[in-house]
């Protein structure tokens, strides 16, 4: 019974736990960055004047957004990496890291794309018209006028996506890469599934996600475009 209130495993394994959370941070930041880039490309495709690009963007988003992340990560780690032997690094943990990053960012990019598309709807049509009227091409008006304003209007939702991504990294456990939740599972196996261990990890994730939320909320206010 006293093991339910025993915080000592958290102290004993503190180094391992920190390493686990460091892996979580690395997964989150790299995937977030790639998802942002890919999501931006996808939204450009979805609003482009070329029907083929529009269709491809729509297809991608609908497939990835509606597939469970577990399946995406299993496809990456088991399907592409193990079965098809598509290795991204000769070092096994590095290989699984990059496959996890690819899976997470491919999945998250569809949400980034849709958030940006919603943001573009907040940009008045006159902005794009004025951009075209001074002779900017489609890509220029997207890059210089529409997207910068779209980004600023969806900073808070992008923050939510980043928070979801941080917590989604726990699913990487199925893809063979050790991050915080994998450390937690190992500790449950070693010490038993106790409340202190669970609480310790829950707090650990909040230490990452709460500031993210506050920061993005602050950023959204700061960068808001006044009309």
């Amino acid at each position, binding site marked *: 019974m006293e093991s339910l209130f025993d915080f000592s495993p958290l102290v004993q394994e503190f180094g391992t736990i920190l390493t686990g959370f460091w892996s979580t941070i690395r997964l989150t930041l790299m995937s977030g960055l790639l998802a942002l880039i890919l999501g931006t490309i996808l939204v450009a495709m979805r609003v482009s*004047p070329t029907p083929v690009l529009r269709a491809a963007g729509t297809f991608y988003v609908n497939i990835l957004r509606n597939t469970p992340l577990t399946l995406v990560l299993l496809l990456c780690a088991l399907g592409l990496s193990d079965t098809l032997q598509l290795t991204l690094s000769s070092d096994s943990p590095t290989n699984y890291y990059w496959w996890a990053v690819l899976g997470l960012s491919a999945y998250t990019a569809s949400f980034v794309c849709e958030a940006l598309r919603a943001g573009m709807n907040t940009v*008045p049509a*006159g*902005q794009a*018209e*004025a*951009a*075209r*009227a*001074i*002779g*900017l*091409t489609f890509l*220029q008006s997207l890059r*210089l*006028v529409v997207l*910068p*304003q779209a980004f*600023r209007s969806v900073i808070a939702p992008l923050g939510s996506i980043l928070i979801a991504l941080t917590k989604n990294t726990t699913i990487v456990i199925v893809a063979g890469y050790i991050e915080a939740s994998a450390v937690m599972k190992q500790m449950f196996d070693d010490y038993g599934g106790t409340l202190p261990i669970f609480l310790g990890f829950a707090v650990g994730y909040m230490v990452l996600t709460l500031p993210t939320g506050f920061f993005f909320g602050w950023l959204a206010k700061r960068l808001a*475009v*006044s*009309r």
Partner: protein
Amino acid sequence: MTENGDATPLVRVENVNKNFGALHVLKDINLTVTRGEVVVVIGPSGGGKSTLCRAINRLETIDSGTIVFDGKPLPAEGKALARLRSDVGMVFQSFNLFAHKTILENVTLGPTKVRGIPREQADKRGMELLERVGIDSQAEKYPAQLSGGQQQRTAIARALAMDPKMILFDEPTSALDPEMVQEVLDVMIGLARDGMTMVVVTHEMGFARRAANRVVFMSEGQIVEENTPDEFFTSPRTDRAKDFLSKILTH
């Protein structure tokens, strides 16, 4: 037709038709604008004035007919269309200044990104243009911090920064508070005096009288009457024009 002699047409609109669904908004429109000419388009709301104005730089596509600008038919899309638009300034009813850019950046975006002019040079010229329209002291502010009249003058400076061959004005004073209308019209009258080719859709009859070479009266998608401002306002030939003028000039 114009005082400055060079009477080659800059814009030729021939047999242009456009429908918005069941609404036939441009009916067989023919219009020629010569270089240096100021053409004012007036008429009741929904008569197709704005659509015609926007069709000239293809912000609005047309269903049939041709529009020739500077000797060449309007390109349908892509780089050629962007190049054409860079030569045709446009001033909108709702200003449409880039909300996330400063006043000076609004004016220099086109020159730097479309014309490839170095930033320093574009800034210098941008400041000159802002001075010309009287808002150089606001250069570092954002559009939302300016009054409507100041925003519209910025929009005119933004159009001028491209050294356009003509400027289209789509009801440039309709969204302004009454006390700000004159400051914008003054800038436009200055441009007209300097020989800028202008097509102006407006309800400002005073501007038409003072600055226009020609008044085009549009109603129900057709050009009903074309005349000099004096002739048009003193002795309109058609009943529709008489009716329209009686409604706007009586009070």
